[in-house]
């Protein structure tokens, strides 16, 4: 193949327009496809992120009040609802909560190590729940203890004063106090009074999914309390193993038996974690599909462009191919000529495309706070484009190789 490189380059110099067009198309395709693949991979990685929850058995009821209630009435009703849910044979445990992982929305707070610290040390997702929340979510306590019932008070996430004790995720504990020394230590959550870490759970991710690939995605704390939001409260329920479906049927009935003046939206008021995960990653999945389609279309257009141009060149050079055959070229020589020609155009395209791909990524890093793309994507993209080019050019090249040497004697 190498024996033909110089004359091919010489010939390509005299077909600049077509050559540049295809090389540019390859370059743009590579630049876009590399970044699209990177985004797809990131979004797909999000889809498989662990939430920390025992997702197989847990479901969530979004309970809204149909009538206005005082905070005392709400607290009493929540306690009665919890008792009713926990009595169900198919239910292992239940807890009221201000939010849950993958909910999409939820509270978070800046965290400092000293009360007068201006710049926060970090940020943490905030969950409000009672002493049943750890067992209900299936969180594993790896140090310290759970809340005592006397530590759990009727409270609100909007309240300015943080409670005296919290349970934190290991990620937050390590971030605040590196070296595994967080238990018993205090910190401040934009409050003048300190909060002491009494327990550490191994994993509990934040409610939103947009930043799950960030290092701080696993930084969460649980504040002891019974949420008393008058708009509604999440009831987290953990079914006994294998009894999720029956628990999901029984739980709303039990709640309505307690008090009919509530609303559980038939569309999204009762969701198991498979549904929650599906909804949470809807945009990630959509973006991955969109990027996949864009990449596929671009690759198809590039392949079609290569097939079209090469077919045109083969038709245009039919006589020339015949002359080459007459002068001693074998069919393989002709096949290799067109494959090499495409490879040279492809190489020019991917070199420019690689620079463009990295440039676009760097622009997105500064403009949209995206991560830096691994060069592996560029490498894979280059290989894919070159293989695509060789695949696309093969059929017209094969047609060229079948041109008879007798073409050399034909007058047109």
């Amino acid at each position, binding site marked *: 193949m190498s024996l033909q490189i110089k004359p091919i380059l010489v010939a390509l110099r005299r077909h600049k327009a077509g050559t540049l067009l295809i090389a540019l198309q390859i370059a743009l395709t590579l630049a876009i496809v590399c970044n699209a693949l990177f985004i797809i991979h990131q979004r797909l990685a999000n889809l498989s992120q662990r939430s920390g929850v025992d997702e197989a058995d847990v479901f969530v009821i979004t309970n809204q009040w149909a009538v206005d209630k005082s905070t005392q009435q709400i607290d009493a009703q929540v306690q009665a609802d919890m008792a009713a849910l926990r009595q169900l044979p198919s239910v292992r445990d239940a807890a009221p909560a201000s939010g849950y992982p993958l909910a999409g929305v939820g509270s978070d707070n800046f965290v400092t190590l000293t009360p007068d610290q201006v710049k926060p040390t970090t940020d943490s997702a905030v969950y409000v729940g009672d002493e049943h929340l750890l067992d209900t979510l299936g969180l594993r306590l790896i140090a310290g203890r759970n809340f005592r019932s006397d530590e759990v008070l009727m409270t609100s996430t909007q309240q300015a004063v943080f409670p005296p004790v919290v349970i934190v995720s290991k990620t937050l504990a390590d971030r605040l106090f590196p070296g595994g020394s967080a238990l018993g230590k205090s910190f401040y959550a934009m409050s003048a009074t300190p909060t002491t870490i009494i327990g550490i759970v191994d994993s509990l991710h934040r409610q939103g999914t947009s930043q799950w690939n960030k290092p701080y995605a696993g930084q969460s704390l649980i504040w002891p309390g019974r949420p008393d939001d008058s708009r509604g409260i999440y009831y987290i329920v953990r079914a006994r193993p294998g009894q999720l479906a029956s628990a999901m049927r029984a739980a709303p009935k039990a709640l309505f038996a307690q008090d009919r003046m509530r609303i559980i939206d038939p569309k999204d008021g009762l969701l198991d974690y498979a549904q929650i995960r599906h909804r949470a990653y809807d945009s990630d999945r959509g973006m991955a599909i969109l990027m996949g389609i864009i990449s596929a279309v671009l690759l198809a257009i590039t392949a079609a462009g290569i097939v079209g141009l090469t077919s045109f060149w083969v038709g245009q050079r039919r006589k020339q191919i015949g002359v080459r055959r007459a002068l*001693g070229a074998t069919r393989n020589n002709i096949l290799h000529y067109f494959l090499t020609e495409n490879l040279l155009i492809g190489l020019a395209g991917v070199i420019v495309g690689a620079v463009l791909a990295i440039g676009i990524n760097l622009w997105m890093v500064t403009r949209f706070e995206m991560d830096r793309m691994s060069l592996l994507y560029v490498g894979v993209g280059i290989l894919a484009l070159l293989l695509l080019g060789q695949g696309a050019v093969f059929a017209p090249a094969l047609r060229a190789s079948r041109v008879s040497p007798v073409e050399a004697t034909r007058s047109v």
Partner: protein
Amino acid sequence: MLKMTHLSKVYRTEVVETYALRDFNIDVKEGEFVAVTGPSGSGKTTFLTIAGLLETFSGGEYHLDGIEVSNLNDNARSKIRNEKIGFIFQAFNLIPDLSVFDNIEVPLRYRGMKSAERKQRIMDSLERVGLASRAKHYPAELSGGQQQRVAIARALAGSPRLLLADEPTGNLDTQMARGVMELLEEIHRDGATIVMVTHDPELAARAQRNVHIIDGQVVDLAEEPRFHTHAGAGASQGQL
């Protein structure tokens, strides 16, 4: 050097078979300069394409430089074309995208020759046709006569055993044609075997021997008028 015995070439369609060559016999000795003449459609070009292994034949035998070529595969035929045959076409058939140097290099590259040897041969052949100073020019920058000289240089560079020329002066004016013909005569004097197809009686007369083809067969000029004036004599046809 070139011997065809009872050779035939038939073009078949569903309803008709057309004999382009029928019971065709020719024997060209080494070092001969043979002109092949005949009216249009007589089979001259078919003879040349078969002689040059550009096309296969239907029956008979063809020995080229002692090799029976009828059973050779495509690669072997390409190799023989590359190593033993030099082509000179009426339309020059230079590759317009390549310089004079690169055009002459084409068959040498297919032979897998080393760069230094290729360069030496290219410059030698260009010297021989008097165009050494035009090596970097492109075909479009040369006159018709010069282009045909480059084509001759390309044919000579590979030191072929046989030169096949198809109307080599057909696209040239009289002066250029004379120059090209003198070059061919000079090449022949140096020992080359040349088979030239032409319908120009003046050119044919300058060859060592004339072979006349009519209706796909070699005819004895003593029995036929020396030059046919009727056009499109046509090949013989037979219904299937």
